[in-house]
């Protein structure tokens, strides 16, 4: 019986790469747009779906959870926190914050390793 090695999981989740990939997706969807009530449903859906597609293309054996919050920029307060119970050697998370003149966008990515 040969020992199967998991090449990707040995160094854990690469947050830098995920961060760059997702930032590009957000730029592509929201870049240069102004806040528009009619479109935000579609925008959040595209951001999340495109991020997921790009993350999967990285080819690592992970389950992904991608959350996106888009809010209008006004003098409001907004807090988010997350708490995770997992294996820290293989699982990881990354948060991307993006904003423009009219809106704020926060994307959270959680990646949980699949043991093959």
């Amino acid at each position, binding site marked *: 019986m040969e020992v199967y090695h998991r090449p990707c999981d040995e160094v854990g989740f690469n947050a830098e790469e995920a961060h760059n990939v997702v930032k590009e997706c957000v730029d592509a969807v929201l870049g240069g747009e102004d806040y528009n009530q009619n479109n935000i449903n579609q925008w959040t859906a595209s951001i999340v779906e495109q991020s997921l597609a790009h993350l999967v293309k990285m080819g690592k054996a992970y389950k992904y959870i991608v959350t996106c919050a888009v809010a209008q920029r006004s003098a409001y307060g907004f807090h988010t*926190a997350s708490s995770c119970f997992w294996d820290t050697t293989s699982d990881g998370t990354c948060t991307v914050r993006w904003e423009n003149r009219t809106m704020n966008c926060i994307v959270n990515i959680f990646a949980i390793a699949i043991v093959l």
Partner: protein
Amino acid sequence: MAERHSRKQEAWRLEQSAESSPREPQGQNREDKASVSTVSHVDEPSPRDEASGLTVRMENTYQLGPTRHFPVATVNRILKDVLTAYLQEAEYDPEFCREMTKTVSEVIKAKVKELMIPRYKLIVTVYIGQRDGQSILIGSRCLWNPKSDTVSSYALRNSTLFALANVYAVYFE
């Protein structure tokens, strides 16, 4: 940045809080902020050896799926109880809500852990915001195995604030 790489071998709790505070509108159309991962509460961090980051190798259990599925209804009730207890009567206040988001997510995680569902990893996210007539949309997508993994969620609104709590449960095969 370095803090993101420091982990322990056993599971511990990592808390990240991202906060948007009111700012004056900027002149430019687009502004990219570098992602800052703020670790505000960590149990016993220790430097992680990147070179030998081998994970623990588990023996094959020959189990095809979870023996006990994640009880979504029970967890929904837990979320509702915790959010109502902490936030139903609360007024929005920046300092208070900053602490509350972290506290509430820890409390929810502790209560769901008490259910002792074997082999499930948990992710609890909490959003608290001021109700000021502004518009916000929060969405999520997950790439997982829908037969074993699931999500549970509860939203609470009162006169000055809104709160959303999500629990994602991922089966560890």
